[in-house]
């Protein structure tokens, strides 16, 4: 049985105490991903380029990949000693490792020790997070009235997105206060979000110390029915292990890719593919999240009435169908090459035509390379054009030199840059709100797959092995499948690059989340049932 005597006010404290700590853990985890570009520059050699970004994403991915191990370690602890103390431990580990990341000197100071230390700390973050979610969802669900389990647990589901929101907001505030240059220095403002975390963690620890143990677990413990070996009972017996596999392949795998594509991949796409200006790319995501977050609770509430299964699967279906059109629209509306052709609507922006020139003399000839940044305005959208046009001196020879031949005039041939970059796009207001709406749609898919998920997972497993059993598939689905969306998406796009198409197919990376979500949708449709388990204590 759940606890029918838990009043709404009591549930409010339980939700708050669980959510604050979970939110902080998500914040700790996400500031790393949000600052991936800066981190790659600080902790990797200067000339690494895409490789450095990928390596950083790999470290980011490492934090996700180790989450299932955290789920096993802390899930087991939670089923053995209780939810409350396991909670505290995960919070302390996460807070400590996050704070420490902010203290690691850059590559220029300590060389390869820098990325290695950051990787170790990232792994500790992943372990801690692996133990957090299963505990929070289990804790809240075991207090909630059975007919409102979806509603109350959906509040926990908002913490991941709100943690992302908090991470974005703090980063933007600090960056705007310090300025871009100062923010990106080795000991610049990008470290502040890591240090701020320690304050938030201390507050969360104080709150969690006041929490009582889950009544269900307390009862199971009082009756002497706790599990002796939660790992063996969860995964060593077919009856439960088959449910772990079903939870993963029929629900969480798809939920994970939808979650990360609609938020993380969307933000990365806006910044690195559409080349939106840093602050605006994040503002768009912030606004979309702000307007979509209440729907976590709405779909959690709805799942109490009509069941969890079809809401989650509908979210996956919408992602499969609409991801390519949505991302294609984002790409189409930021195609600066087309803007440059529309001369009547193009105007020069401020500080245009600044640049410097380099002279290159080699066997191939005498060249002057003009590095130029032009600022343009197209229908109230501002953007920069970075180009390196070359002037080649015609008839130049090393010997005898032209000066020896007494030539007074020189003829140059202009070689235009073929790899012009259009960056730092700041969209006009109307276009910006269109982008907010498109990203909002994708976050709505997230709320559909994620809102009912906690209640769904809790209802699949018995109390004495619940923490262990639900944590592992959750963190594999989110940590592995979902967490690798940015990494694999970027990698797939790289693979499409060739001599004929040096830019590659920017939408190719979507095939990974679309494929995984489609497979999960199919399995879930066939194998899951829609029945709500009223009594999770039986």
């Amino acid at each position, binding site marked *: 049985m759940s606890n029918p005597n838990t009043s709404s006010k009591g549930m409010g404290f339980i939700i708050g105490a669980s959510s604050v700590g979970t939110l902080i853990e998500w914040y700790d985890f996400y500031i790393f991903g949000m600052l991936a570009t800066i981190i790659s520059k600080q902790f990797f050699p200067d000339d690494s380029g895409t*490789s450095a970004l*990928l*390596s950083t994403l*790999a470290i980011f*991915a*490492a934090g996700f*990949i180790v989450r299932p191990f955290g789920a096993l370690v802390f899930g087991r602890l939670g089923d053995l000693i209780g939810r409350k103390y396991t909670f505290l431990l995960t919070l302390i580990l996460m807070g400590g490792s996050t704070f420490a990341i902010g203290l690691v000197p850059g590559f220029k100071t300590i060389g390869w020790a820098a990325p290695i230390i950051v990787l170790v700390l990232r792994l500790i973050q992943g372990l801690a997070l692996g133990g957090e979610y299963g505990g929070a969802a289990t804790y809240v669900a075991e207090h909630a009235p059975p007919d409102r389990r979806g509603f109350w647990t959906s509040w926990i589901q908002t913490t991941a997105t709100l943690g992302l929101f908090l991470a974005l907001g703090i980063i933007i505030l600090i960056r705007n206060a310090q300025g871009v240059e100062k923010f990106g220095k080795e000991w610049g403002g990008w470290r502040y979000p890591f240090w701020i975390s320690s304050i938030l963690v201390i507050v969360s620890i104080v709150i969690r110390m006041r929490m009582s143990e889950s009544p269900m677990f307390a009862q199971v413990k009082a009756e002497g029915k706790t599990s002796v070996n939660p790992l063996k*009972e969860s995964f060593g*017996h*077919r*009856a*439960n*292990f*088959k*449910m772990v*596999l*079903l939870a*993963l*392949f029929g629900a969480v795998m798809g939920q994970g890719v939808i979650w990360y594509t609609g938020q993380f991949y969307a933000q990365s796409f806006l910044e690195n593919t559409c080349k939106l200006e840093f602050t605006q790319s994040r503002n768009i995501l912030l606004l979309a999240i702000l307007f979509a977050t209440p729907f976590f609770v709405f779909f959690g509430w709805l799942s109490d009435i009509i069941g969890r299964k079809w809401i989650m699967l509908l979210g996956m279906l919408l992602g499969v169908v609409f991801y390519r059109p949505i991302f294609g629209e984002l790409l189409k509306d930021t195609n600066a090459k087309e803007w440059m052709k529309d001369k009547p609507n193009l105007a020069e922006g401020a500080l245009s035509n600044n640049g410097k020139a380099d002279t290159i003399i080699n066997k191939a000839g005498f060249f002057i390379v003009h590095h130029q940044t032009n600022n343009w305005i197209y229908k109230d959208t501002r953007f920069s054009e970075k180009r390196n046009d070359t002037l080649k001196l015609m008839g130049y020879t090393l010997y005898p030199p032209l000066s020896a031949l007494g030539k007074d005039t020189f003829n140059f041939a202009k070689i235009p840059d073929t790899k012009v970059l259009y960056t730092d796009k700041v969209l006009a207001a109307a276009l910006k709100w269109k982008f907010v709406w498109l990203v909002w749609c994708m976050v709505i898919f997230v709320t559909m797959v994620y809102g009912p998920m906690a209640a769904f997972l809790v209802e699949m*497993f*018995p*109390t*004495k*092995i619940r923490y262990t059993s639900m944590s592992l598939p959750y963190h*594999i689905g989110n940590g*592995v499948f979902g967490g*690798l969306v940015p990494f*694999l998406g970027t*990698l797939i796009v790289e*693979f499409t690059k060739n001599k004929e198409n040096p830019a590659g197919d920017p939408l190719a990376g979507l095939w990974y989340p679309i494929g995984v979500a489609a497979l999960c949708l199919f*399995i879930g449709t*066939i*194998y899951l*049932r829609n029945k709500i*388990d009223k009594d999770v204590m*039986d």
Partner: protein
Amino acid sequence: MNGFKRYLGIIWILLSPAIVVFLFWQAADKIGKASAATRSNVTLQWSIILIIFLPICIGLLIFGYYAFKGYYDHLPESSEEITDY
């Protein structure tokens, strides 16, 4: 529907090694095409992918086996069905 679930189990059983083969093929292809400067990084990335997805593919194989044997014909209604061993 239960019959359909069981026959699909064969698909999952076959899909698992197909994914493994695909991943190894892609790894060999991409590492082979990598330049000397990036080969170590590419090898590391693909090693991570293989290490992660191999156990998951084994899980998919087991899922397919369970489906084929009919273990998903009936999902448990209470904890006794899961913990009665």
